[in-house]
């Protein structure tokens, strides 16, 4: 009987060294806030885990989520797992097209029944608008329903796939909704689901979530909105560099005024940081460069449900 290829086997055969893999494990374990012993166990478990199959379905979306995570042609720690290892189907990235592409997706699903990781970005039109978004004669909902049926875990990626996002903003012309809502309504099977929200989500968050699942065979602890607590357990306000000014009652009154430049809190300018659970202020964006409040703009609250409709607008509180 042929032994199943492990993650480390595949990486080595593709020229990724043990040191590079160790580095990935160390940084990812740190991202998951694992202690030193747990990090060692995590690395061993991930190395010996079978090569995963990842099927990535994109529906009503802008490709921003893919750009966020797979933006680089060079291997980075964030895209190592996906680019080098496991991505069996991604409409924007794969070379195949048409019937060949659809056949590749169905083969990957058939070969990995009950084991593949299904990533969904984009919202799904429903009701009498179901066919407003379709490909190869199948509606998004049909494709999703088929793919969810035998998935090991489903990762809803981004604001649209988690909570509907922009397509679902009022008046929601396509009756768009997210994966969790479809499961709740019984329109697709209910499977283990993790919501990685944000517009777009932080690359390390999706990598960390997948790595945790592969190493442990289960999802990390989730919050009430099915988001990994390790990444969404605190508000961006909790770790904002402007927090001391908030505590001292110092608020910028307009963008780029003297207070804003001195780091005063942007709450009066509409910052949604206190209501927004995400890891922007700890993980930061663009390979650890910065995050919105650090760059002078308030948080838009993009990782929360209905962020386009729920607030008084981006620039008021």
């Amino acid at each position, binding site marked *: 009987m042929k032994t199943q290829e492990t993650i480390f086997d595949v990486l080595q055969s593709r020229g990724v060294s043990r040191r*590079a893999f*160790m*580095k*990935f494990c160390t*940084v990812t374990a740190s991202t998951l806030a694992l202690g030193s012993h747990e990090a060692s166990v995590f690395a061993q478990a991930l190395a010996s885990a079978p090569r995963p199959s990842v099927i990535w379905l994109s529906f009503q979306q802008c490709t921003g989520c893919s750009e966020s995570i797979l933006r680089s042609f060079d291997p980075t720690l964030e895209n190592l797992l996906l680019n080098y290892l496991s991505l069996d189907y991604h409409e924007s990235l794969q070379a195949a097209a048409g019937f060949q592409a659809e056949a590749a997706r169905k083969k990957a699903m058939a070969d990995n029944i009950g084991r593949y990781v299904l990533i969904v970005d984009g919202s799904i039109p429903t009701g009498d608008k179901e066919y407003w978004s379709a490909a190869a004669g199948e509606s998004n909902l049909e494709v999703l329903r088929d793919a969810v049926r035998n998935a090991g875990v489903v990762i809803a990626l981004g604001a649209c796939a988690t909570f509907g996002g922009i397509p679902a903003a009022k008046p929601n012309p396509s009756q768009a909704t997210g994966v969790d809502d479809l499961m709740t309504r019984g329109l697709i099977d209910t499977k283990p689901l993790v919501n990685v929200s944000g517009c777009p989500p932080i690359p390390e968050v999706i990598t960390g979530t997948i790595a945790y699942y592969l190493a442990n065979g289960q999802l990390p602890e989730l919050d009430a909105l099915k988001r990994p607590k390790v990444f969404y357990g605190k508000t961006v306000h909790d770790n904002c560099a402007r927090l*001391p000014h908030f*505590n001292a009652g110092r608020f910028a009154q307009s963008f780029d005024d003297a207070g804003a430049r001195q780091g005063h809190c942007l709450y009066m300018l509409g910052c949604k940081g*206190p*209501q927004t659970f995400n890891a922007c202020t700890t993980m930061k964006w663009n390979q650890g*460069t910065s995050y919105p409040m650090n760059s002078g703009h308030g948080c838009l609250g993009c990782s929360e449900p209905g962020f386009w409709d729920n607030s008084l607008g981006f620039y008021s509180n």
Partner: protein
Amino acid sequence: MSRLSEIPIRVDFVPASLRQTDGISPAGVAILSEIESLLEQYQAFGRNGSIDLRWLSLLPGDLDRLHDVLGTGEVSAQVNALGMSTARETAIQCVWWVEHCGPEGESLGQWIEVTEVPSLLRSDRASIAYGLEALRDRIVSFGGESMKELPTVQGEQA
């Protein structure tokens, strides 16, 4: 939550007495105590340990102070794997300062490792098969003949 007064405020106040410029902050002292504890464990039981500095609440200058306290040892190594990583031995035996950087040079985090040699620096015996394959290809590409291809030596044929 729509009013400022509804926002839970966490007091983030550092007393002036703790903002030392010449000494080391309480957070720095705590890290040094942790290193001491890890070293004792390593000495007694041979159990490696590490401290992830990425998420610790440190004051500006704390890492520099820690560097100063731990000093510089004899070994400094760089590893180029998905970006540069450095492992620097400190002046305290078996205490290493490891930093991982990404492809653009951005720091991904710093760790203090208590061990004889950081695992990052070790070559991997389990990977020899890949190395052998590469070596044989190179021997052939340089006009040589891989030992694998050579006929077996006399005496082994029996």
